[in-house]
């Protein structure tokens, strides 16, 4: 086959190469453009039925609700791209939310940045523990993070006891973090968008970011190509944990009442958002932007049900159905593309 190509370096030989490059480009574009199209159609339809969906208050509500999920989705994307999974983020969020926001009770004057650093520190410690066990112990991340999901939640429950952080103990400067904004757009949403942009740029354009994709596509080949797979996976888990820690502090600022159940079940919602956003559950493809839009889509469904007056009871079934639809469509499209690529390459041979 290769000889056929070299024999005909002119137009017939060049065309299939260019064609398959166009096709692969299209795959990359489809990954995000699909979810963006779904999101836009969803917003357009909802707005057409009920124009108040796009009023300032509702957009603000939507963005504030998305912030925590979109942040968590960024960390989870890094882990999932490397063909791992982090189930412990809900528990990390809960522990960080209680411990960090709980500092305001005994130390009312504590500066808000210190509280964020505490949350970040807790998250990083949990993430490092996950990363060390997965990378050093070479055990499946599903099992390790399932175990740390239990352990971190258990520690949280022991620390919390029967108490809870209440809104009265929290200073206004802390509570206002998700609420302050310009033109109805919370500063926090802008900051999170910037963070996601940086994360997406890192994954797309940095060597160590690209290496995560390589590890996810084929761990053994990545290792043989000289990629320090253990270190990269460790980094991905550490970042995911750190993000969950910060998200915990934001969660506390947003909901203001923190007990030992904070963040329970978030891990599966975030994985849903990541997968809906086009990140392959077995690694190697997807983007941070897609995952963030996945999170935005899931929380805009909540908001749309509100506006349209449909009972919130439908929310869970709809998001489950959406996830199944997303992965099925992704599968069908990739099968079509594979078939098309095969046809083209066999065309070269004959």
């Amino acid at each position: 086959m290769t000889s056929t190509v070299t024999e005909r370096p002119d137009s017939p030989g060049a065309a299939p190469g260019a064609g398959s490059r166009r096709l692969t480009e299209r795959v990359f574009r489809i990954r995000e453009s699909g979810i963006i199209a779904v999101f836009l159609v969803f917003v357009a339809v909802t707005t057409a039925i009920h124009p108040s969906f796009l009023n300032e208050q509702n957009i603000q509500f939507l963005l504030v609700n998305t912030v925590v999920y979109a942040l968590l989705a960024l960390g989870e994307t890094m882990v999932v791209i490397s063909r791992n999974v982090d189930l412990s983020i809900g528990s990390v969020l809960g522990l960080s939310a209680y411990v960090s926001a709980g500092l305001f009770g005994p130390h009312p004057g504590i500066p808000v940045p210190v509280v964020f650093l505490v949350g970040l520190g807790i998250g990083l410690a949990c993430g490092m523990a996950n990363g060390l066990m997965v990378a050093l112990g070479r055990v499946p991340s599903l099992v390790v993070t399932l175990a740390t999901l239990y352990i971190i939640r258990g520690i949280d429950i022991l620390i919390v006891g029967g108490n809870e952080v209440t809104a009265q103990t929290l200073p206004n400067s802390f509570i206002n973090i998700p609420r302050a904004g310009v033109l109805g757009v919370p500063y926090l949403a802008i900051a999170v968008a910037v963070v996601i942009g940086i994360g997406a740029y890192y994954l797309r354009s940095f060597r160590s970011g690209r290496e995560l994709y390589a590890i996810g596509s084929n761990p053994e080949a990545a290792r043989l190509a000289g990629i320090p797979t253990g270190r990269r996976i460790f980094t991905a888990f550490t970042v995911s944990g750190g993000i969950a820690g910060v998200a915990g502090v934001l969660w506390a600022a947003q909901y203001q009442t923190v007990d030992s159940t904070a963040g329970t079940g978030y891990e599966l919602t975030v994985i849903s958002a990541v997968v809906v956003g086009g990140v392959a559950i077995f690694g190697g493809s997807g983007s941070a932007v897609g995952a963030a839009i996945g999170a935005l889509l899931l929380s805009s469904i909540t908001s749309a049900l509100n506006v349209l007056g449909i009972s919130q009871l439908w929310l869970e079934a709809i998001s489950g159905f959406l996830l199944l639809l997303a992965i099925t469509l992704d599968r069908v499209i990739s099968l079509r593309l594979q078939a098309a690529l095969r046809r083209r390459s066999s065309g070269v041979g004959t």
Partner: protein
Amino acid sequence: MERDLLTRRLSGAARASLRWETGLGLLVVAIVIFGAATSPQFLTSTNFFNTGVSSGEIAIMALPMTLIVISGEIDLSVASILGMSSALLGFLWARHWPMPAIFVMVALLGIVAGLINGLLVTRVGLPSLAVTIGTLALYRGVALILLGPNTISNFPASYTNIGINPLPGTQIPYNVAIFVVLAVIFGIVLHFTATGRSIYAMGASPDAALFAGIRVKRVKTMLYVASGLVCALAGVLWTFRLATAVQNNGLGLELDVVAIVLLGGVSIFGGKGSMAGVVLAVIAFAALQNALLLTNFNQEATGIVIGALLLVSVFAPNAAALWRRGLPRWARGRPGRTAPSSPLGALHD
């Protein structure tokens, strides 16, 4: 010749899991000694009944899960099928359906739920982890739609008594008796039938199993259907035991079920594990929760111990290899060997 290789590999796996079961047996003994030493109530028949009755449904759901994980897949929707069945039971009872007709409908619902999982995994070819996270939300969502915030609790006492009374003449709760019967059935299917051997084969190597003429897709679909049906049964038992049908029945139990199966020595990559191991893990899980309850340990924090056991269960088989290898090279700044660390390696592709 290939079959020879396969048999040898399987018998090697069986030997490894035998050692694992010995360890689990010792763990159960240790928990019982701990429980008996710390609380005089631990070894009483009332306590035995309470321990059994409160873990029965989780134990029942762990049985089909064992076969599914050995076949190289996973089912995270089990607790949602339990909740959905419970909701349908309450929904139809509130509409004055006769109980036998309700049972038929609930069984059908479980079969359909399992069939959806199975077809999406085998025929569409999607990863079971993603599919069953989706149906976890979907089936729980159906429960929410059916019942909303309502609680149905006016079930006749002849049914709800299964949560209070043991089988006549014994101290065995109904759900534990059903677990024992099902464990024997699933154990026989797994260990003494051709289908059972094929489940190991497809977990160890899906391609080899396919080329050996095993109907991988059909068997896996059947496993999901069995799981759906058994989880529907667990939903009925759960509803009657607590005398309550509410949309969040069994919320989050899927992770408990997976934890038990893994603690039982079943490999998350498929192809390894035994029914005896899972049954021992069920006993260890139930006894441990009960012992910690009696020692006034914060009941909800028992997850720490279960999580630690899970870590031990996954690290113990690797410990020897890790020790032999010494410090991994990547820790010294050079690229080292890393085993494929996919969430479910055998499911790749």
